[in-house]
């Protein structure tokens, strides 16, 4: 699993590749998000287009990250959900919690 970050108009986009599952992958998400927030980057957009597998721990990590960023006065939103990730968020009712986007420009603009 890898996470590349880039900044677009004040929004930090995390391009995630691989899977978000129990173990090192979830820990990497947690540490990366907390590190960004600590450095003052609180408008975060997670690009999940290349995430092929998410398990319950991974969903938990997304929720935990969402709460942490919100608690620090920022926002965490999701971009390019795969069909499977969307299904997991739908059945857990988390699509009612997360702002999700299919278009990166629209997603970035939503932070303004």
């Amino acid at each position, binding site marked *: 699993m890898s996470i590349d970050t880039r900044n677009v108009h004040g929004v930090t986009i995390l391009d995630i590749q691989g899977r978000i*599952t*129990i173990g090192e992958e979830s820990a990497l998400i947690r540490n990366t998000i907390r590190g960004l927030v600590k450095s003052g980057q609180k408008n975060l957009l997670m690009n999940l287009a290349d995430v092929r597998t998410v*398990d*319950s*721990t991974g969903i*938990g990590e997304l*929720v935990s990250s969402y709460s942490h960023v919100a608690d620090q006065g920022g926002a965490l939103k999701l971009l390019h959900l795969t069909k499977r990730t969307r299904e*997991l968020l739908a059945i857990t009712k988390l699509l009612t919690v997360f702002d999700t986007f299919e278009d990166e420009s629209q997603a970035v603009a939503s932070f303004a």
Partner: protein
Amino acid sequence: MSDSEQRETDRQELPGKPAGKEFQKEFEMSFGSNIEFLDLVQEISESITRMAGFDDEASHWICLSVRESVANAIQHGNQQDEGKKVGVRFRIDRRRLLITVSDQGCGFDESSLPDPLDSGNLLKPSGRGVFFVHTFMDDVTYHNLPQGGFEVTMEKRLKHTT
């Protein structure tokens, strides 16, 4: 005839089934309670679901259910004690895949688990694993073993049987 009676009849009529054997194919493994074995379990699960005849989509969700059950067995059942074993058993017949995951823990009361869909629980970071298993498998049963330990049995029926 009820669905379970039908399945029982089908099992008895399996072509080429060895006498006295309920299932056509069986595979069993046992390993110490280390989360690092999850990827190996995943790879084996993928092979077996394909062998059973499930498509990629069904296979993905079955394998996720196995991962969740094995992770629960390692973390909650055996408390990550590597001296305690987790067992996984796959049984295939013409109509279904039956998977049993066992551990050496004390088990849990399923009715005591919080509902992850309750509005007060939506932002909790844990508590969705058992929910996923119930969502993606057709039948799920949990029970304590007479010799000690706990196991979950999950059944997924092939589409042409429904």
